[in-house]
């Protein structure tokens, strides 16, 4: 019974993932985009506030770069790679409901420039992330 949320969580094939439930997408301009996974938004429930670093902020893989708050809980956002912030999704600051409704598209959080390629290759594939959720 309690696995129902994980079984139903959507995982997109073309993205990479972290064990902290962030997704990363490689954009055509060479930058990366990140957000939280469907599993993460579903576990958090109604998201009401997102605190993210602004343009130019340094990102260090695995370190907390902000917080995401739902009615019941607060959770850290971790940087999936080293780099620096190019832009943040301003509409989320006004109304974070898109993170719940469309976490992989309009609910994206940050666009960033990576310091190198190596960390991208080390992120979890969709299959590996699915395995991680199944093991919960």
């Amino acid at each position, binding site marked *: *019974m*309690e696995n*129902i*949320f994980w079984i139903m969580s959507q995982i997109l094939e073309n993205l990479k993932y972290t064990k902290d439930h962030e997704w990363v997408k490689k954009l055509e301009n060479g930058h990366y985009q990140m957000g939280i996974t469907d599993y993460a938004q579903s576990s958090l*429930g*109604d998201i*009401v*506030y997102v*605190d993210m670093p602004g343009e130019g902020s340094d990102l260090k893989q695995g370190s907390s770069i902000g*917080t995401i*708050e739902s*009615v*019941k809980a*607060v959770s850290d956002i971790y940087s999936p790679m080293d780099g620096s912030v190019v832009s943040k999704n301003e509409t989320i600051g006004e109304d974070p409901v898109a993170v719940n409704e469309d976490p992989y598209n309009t609910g994206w959080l940050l666009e960033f420039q990576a310091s190198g390629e190596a960390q991208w290759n080390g992120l979890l594939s969709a299959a590996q992330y699915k395995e991680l959720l199944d093991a919960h």
Partner: protein
Amino acid sequence: MLKTPLHEEHLLLKARMVDFAGYDMPVLYSGIRDEYTAVRNNCGIFDISHMAPILISGKNPEDLTGFLNYLTCRDVANLESGKVQYNAITSEQGGLLDDITIYKINDLKYILLANSSNAQKVIRHLNKWKEEKFASVQIEPYKDYVLMALQGKNSEMELKKILTSGDADFQDLFFYEFTLFKNHNHPYFLSRTGYTGEDGFEILLPEKEGIELWKKLISNGVAPCGLGSRDTLRMEVFYPLYGNELSETRTPIESSIDWIVSSKKEYLGKKNIFHSPPGKKVTGFIMSAKGALPRSHFPAENASGEIIGEVTSGGFSFLWDRGFGMAFLNKEYLKDGQKIYIDIRGKKNEALVQIKSPYKGSIKRRKK
């Protein structure tokens, strides 16, 4: 873990379950915002069977009121039959063992409704004092019952679809009044009470009938609601919660439920409650802007950064679209509009003190 008789229904409705006071309880079904909105704009139904009704009866009225008056801080003697009273059981030290509601059926019968987390403590306390001073009083915790709260302005309309006056005369009730279900030897009630700031009913029934009523309400489209939305709903009207605003180490005056504290009658803990004026009291507050949310135990500071108290309950208000909560603050800061600062993970966020909730819900009070 303990289960209420509605546990199976919660699983069928795909609720997300959590441990609450030893019970496996639904925290949400469709989502906290959805359930909250159902109660504010329409109505919703909560399983509160984890709460503990206790039948208190006796052979003469004076013994009963003597017992209840000795153990609680509000005068029970002038409570009328058919009315409910919000009250609290005090400890010898002047703290709260529990906040309760008392239902007066008649001069010889009352129902006391205790919080789930305090139920065993309350029953032990009642029995202890019965043995020491009030031997004629009978104390019988209910068994095999369902207790549910139907809350929201359309509650009466939903009940009318299911119940008739042959079951219970509920349509003439006002806030904090109750009626008993007919055709029962044991008292089961329907009361116009709740914990959301809206009109609504709390309904005590035997297990089988309770499950049936729950299923009928659900099949008529009433939204099942969990503990998550219940917490936001009660916070927006600044209702205190045991374990947050209310505790054994805080007097009812410190918890700002002074309005139930009698200075006339004698009762357990009274001397300590009035021993010295409180340095701190509980109040509501609303954040000045959208942003990070205040949560329990976050420090509250004044403009110069001195700690002046702490948050007792906090969260996000759908009404005001920002963080808000209740805090235990130095008394001099209890003024409407007083600026305070909540330390949220090292950052100071401005909030304004709000003594009474500005929200006017759909509660139906009897006009005096």
